[in-house]
Each structure stands twice: as structure tokens, then as C-alpha cells.
């Protein structure tokens, strides 16, 4: 007979449940005081504001794991995620560089970026409806000055998203390479 304790333990052992329990526990730890501040303030001192994109993806991943995986599979297949990640890396390299081209500067008067996003939506919104909604939310939060930044890029993505995306690419790329080697 399955007791409530057994049911909890069995559920907690499921990989996608376990990962979420870790994340919720980590979030709870962030409220522990350390000196004059809670731990989150130390983390915030390093990461600053996360983009709305990161927060939305995080909460969708947390609350709707199957929907999240289905969405990634449908709208962000491996090749597209790889292109996205490489674009982010290139963006940060140029933004922190010393040459005359600074892509970050375009985010303060974001007309070029808005035109680019609109063109993408015209082209891809049917195939990527969730991404389209996500971009719309980012723009709305930018319009409301939801973050301390005045730069549109900071509402679209951030270094934490780039790092997580990069980590998420490691395993699929390794298995992709393994399959190619075997064939």
C-alpha cells in the first residue's frame, strides 16, 4: 500500500520534479539574512536585473515542464538555439570591445531593433507564436520602464540567459556528435 510518505518520495525522485525542488529550495535560501542584507542582495549585486525573457522562461520551465519542453522542441530546435547563443556571444564581444562598433548603443534609441523584430514577426510569427508573445511582453515591459535600464537589449536577454542557453546546448551537441560519429 502506498503511504503519503512513499508517494512524496517517489514523486520527488522523478528527475523533472527533483530539479524543481532544488530550484525552489535555492530560491528559499535567497531570503536568509547574511550580515545586513539577505543573500539575494549579494546575488543581485552580481547579476543585476534579469531580462523579462529570462524570468518568463524560468517560470514556464518551473510551472509547466512538459509545455516548456514541447515549446522548445517546436520553436527552438537545436540549430536555432545554437545560432541564438552564438549571436548573444558575438553581441557581448562587440559590446565590451574597444572598436567603433558597439551594438549595445543601438538599444537606447531602439528603432533599428524594433524594425528588425517587426520584420522577424512578419516572417516567423506563425511558426513561432510563443516567441512572438514573449517578444511582445518584453516590448511592453520596456515601454513601462520595468527595469532600471533604458536599453531595449536588456529587456530581450541577459548574460545569465546566455550562460544557461550555452549549458543547455552542451548535452544535445555532444549526443549529436556521438550519433554522427557512430553513423
Amino acid at each position: 500500500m502506498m503511504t503519503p510518505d512513499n508517494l512524496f518520495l517517489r514523486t520527488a525522485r522523478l528527475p523533472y520534479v527533483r530539479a524543481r525542488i532544488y530550484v525552489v529550495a535555492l530560491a528559499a535560501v535567497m531570503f536568509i539574512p547574511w550580515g545586513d542584507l539577505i543573500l539575494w542582495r549579494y546575488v543581485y549585486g552580481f547579476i543585476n536585473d534579469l531580462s523579462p525573457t529570462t524570468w518568463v522562461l524560468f517560470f514556464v520551465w518551473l510551472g509547466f515542464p512538459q509545455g516548456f519542453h514541447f515549446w522548445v522542441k517546436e520553436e527552438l530546435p537545436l540549430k536555432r538555439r545554437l545560432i541564438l547563443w552564438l549571436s548573444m556571444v558575438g553581441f557581448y564581444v562587440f559590446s565590451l570591445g574597444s572598436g567603433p562598433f558597439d551594438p549595445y548603443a543601438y538599444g537606447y534609441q531602439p528603432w533599428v531593433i524594433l524594425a528588425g523584430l517587426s520584420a522577424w514577426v512578419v516572417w516567423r510569427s506563425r511558426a513561432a507564436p510563443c516567441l512572438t508573445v514573449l517578444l511582445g511582453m518584453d516590448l511592453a515591459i520596456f515601454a513601462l520602464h520595468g527595469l532600471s535600464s533604458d536599453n531595449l537589449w536588456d529587456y530581450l536577454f541577459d548574460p545569465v540567459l546566455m550562460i544557461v542557453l550555452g549549458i543547455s546546448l552542451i548535452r544535445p551537441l555532444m549526443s549529436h556528435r556521438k550519433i554522427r560519429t557512430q553513423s
Partner: protein
Amino acid sequence: MLKRWFPTIVFAVGLLAAIITATLPERPQFAEPEKTAAALAATQAAALPARFAWSDLPRPTPSAHAATLAEVLPGTRLPVLKVEQDNEPVHLVAAWFGGSREGAADVSLYQSDWYANASWLPAREIMTRQHAADELGRNIRKLGNPLFVTEPGRLHLFFVSVSYGGWAGSAINRSTSTDGGKSWKPSQRIVTSPFFNLSTLVRNPGVWLSDGSLGLPVYHEFINKHGEWLRLDPEGRVLAKNRMPMPRATLQPAVVVLDGQRAVSALRDAGPGENQVQWAETGDAGRSWQAGSARTIPNPNSAVAMIGLRDGSLLMACNPIGGNRNQLSLLRSSDQGSTWTLVRVIEQSADDRDEFSYPALIQDRTGEVHLVYTHLRRGIRHARFTEAWLNNPGTPNVPAVSP
């Protein structure tokens, strides 16, 4: 049907909101004083007799560095540069960071006030590390360069803070005062970098544009070292950012406006080998900067201050010797920065370990010039002089401040 178009509608709403609320600033134009007012001010400055005096600011801590100086201007905020004429004595405010040593946890920002014909008032601690952490909602490891920018009726305080790492991990914050620096509003962080907002610092004052926005020279130290130019609206929001691309590593741009569109910038040379004062120019009010050839002024990787005097010449305070910061001098240019002449040595020492550095210059509304600088890392010193004193240099290599 609605389900099919829902994503596009959401995007369109977001796009529309972004377009409506996005600011479209005017084409930049440097604010210039009215010609008659400028001519009157030039005559007034030239009429002051030759004089030089110096004094030390209060020393509440064992170490002090990176002073900034501004004149509290009476009047209302706009239009910019319209200062009310009054008979009040000149009121200066200086700020610096002080503590047990640079970068220590006990470093705070201090402020002192000076009224003409009086001595400096006791220093006040205006920002501690804990105070900054509370206002900015994050841990602050250390505080750095403060910078005052003045306009009629309002003072702006920009300051550097670091949450993790060294100075390359800096970010800038802004506070304002409408009572001449007696009280400061809670500070806010300015986001200027996409990578964890790392590495933007301030040192030299900004210049006002005709639409009331502020052009602020800043610099970047993470991976690369270069100057940058921010355009901020009156509430401190970033309107634009432009890089100052240079062939060498440079820091701490000091900008002087020549006319409505042109400005020049002297930069600290942080590159390897023989260092000289680096130079950049803009011909479109800061929208783009071009590297000029380095000036033939040695620069031992140290801060430079530069202002335009009322007589049209440029005045620079720097350490024009190779290797160290044990001589602080004034140089002057009458051809918009192309050539420079040493006019006065303010202070020098035979000991290479002595330091007279991080100068800040202003010319007050009466025409007197004020210089504050780090004195031996133990305190801040204030020197004041007139154009006539500069015009009649005597022996330029004799220090003005007696040891």
C-alpha cells in the same frame, strides 16, 4: 481566428507601446552662453588682479583621493546656463572618497563646502558603503570616484560603486540635490553596460546640451580601456551612448566644448610604453568621436583635468612628467588644444613616491579658477588663482605651493 492572430496582436501592442514611450531626443547641440554674457564674464575674469592662494580641505580620514569640485549656481534649472546674477559669495562644493586606504571597506564619500573669503567647512560623510547598499538594494563592496555636475538650482552627484572585484567591476550611480548639497536624494543606478552592468566609471564633469540633456564623459575598464560618452536626460535616463575609439588604452576623458557642435577631449593614457596625453574630438556634439594624435605632454597613466577659460584658451592640470605623479602642473593652449605651454608648476617633490594627482578644475562665475587635487594621498588641497596670475607666469618650473 483570434487564437491564430493572438501572438501577433500581443506583439503589436508591445511594439506600439514601445514606439509611443520611446524618447526621440533632439539632434544634440552643446549649450553655449549668450554672447553678451560671455563677453561680460570674460572682461570680468580678465580684470581680476594676479593672485594665488592655497588651502587644505578637512582631513577626516587617513587617506583621501579623487576630489571633484563644483560651484553651486543660484537660479532655476532651465534654461541651462542662465545663472541669476546675485551678490551672494561664490559657494563651492567638493567631494572625494576617504577611508583607511583606497578600496577599503571603510571608504566613504565626503563633502565640504567653501564660501568666498572663508575657509572650508568641516567635512560631512555623504555616502557610506552601507548607505549605498541600502539605497541601491544590493551589496556594495567599495565606493570610488565621486563627480559633481552643476546647473542652476541643482547639483548632480555621480559616484562609482563596486559590488564584486576591482575597479573594472564598477557601475555608476546618480543622486541630486536642490538645496546646494545640503541633502541628497536617494541614489539610483545607471545601466550602461550589457554584461552585468560591469565597468563604467566617472571622473571628469559633463557638459550641458541645448535641450537640457547632459553629455557625460565616462570610461570603461573591463577587458578594454576606453572613453565613452553618455547623453542623459534631466532625470538621469540614458538617451544615447557613444564610444571614443582610440588606438591605445585610455581612461578618464576630460571634455571642453569649443562651439555648438565641436568639443575636444584629453584622456589619460593607460597603454604600455611611453605615455602621453591622448586626444579625441567630436564635430557633431558627441554623436561620434575621432581619435586625434596624442599631445606631446608626458602622462604617467594619471588623471587629467581640462577646462575652457573665459579668455578662450584651454587650461589643463596634469602630471606632465614620465613615470610618476610627483609634479602637478598647469598647461595652457591658445589654439584649441593643438599646442600646449607649461605655465605653472603647482607642486612638485624630488621623491618619486609623493603624489599630487587627480586634479579637478573649474572657473567660478567671478572668473577665479579653482583647482583641487590629491595631496600625498593623505588629503585634498585647494589652489585658487586668476587668469592674470596665469598670464604672468614668472618662472614656470618653480612650484606655486611652497613645500
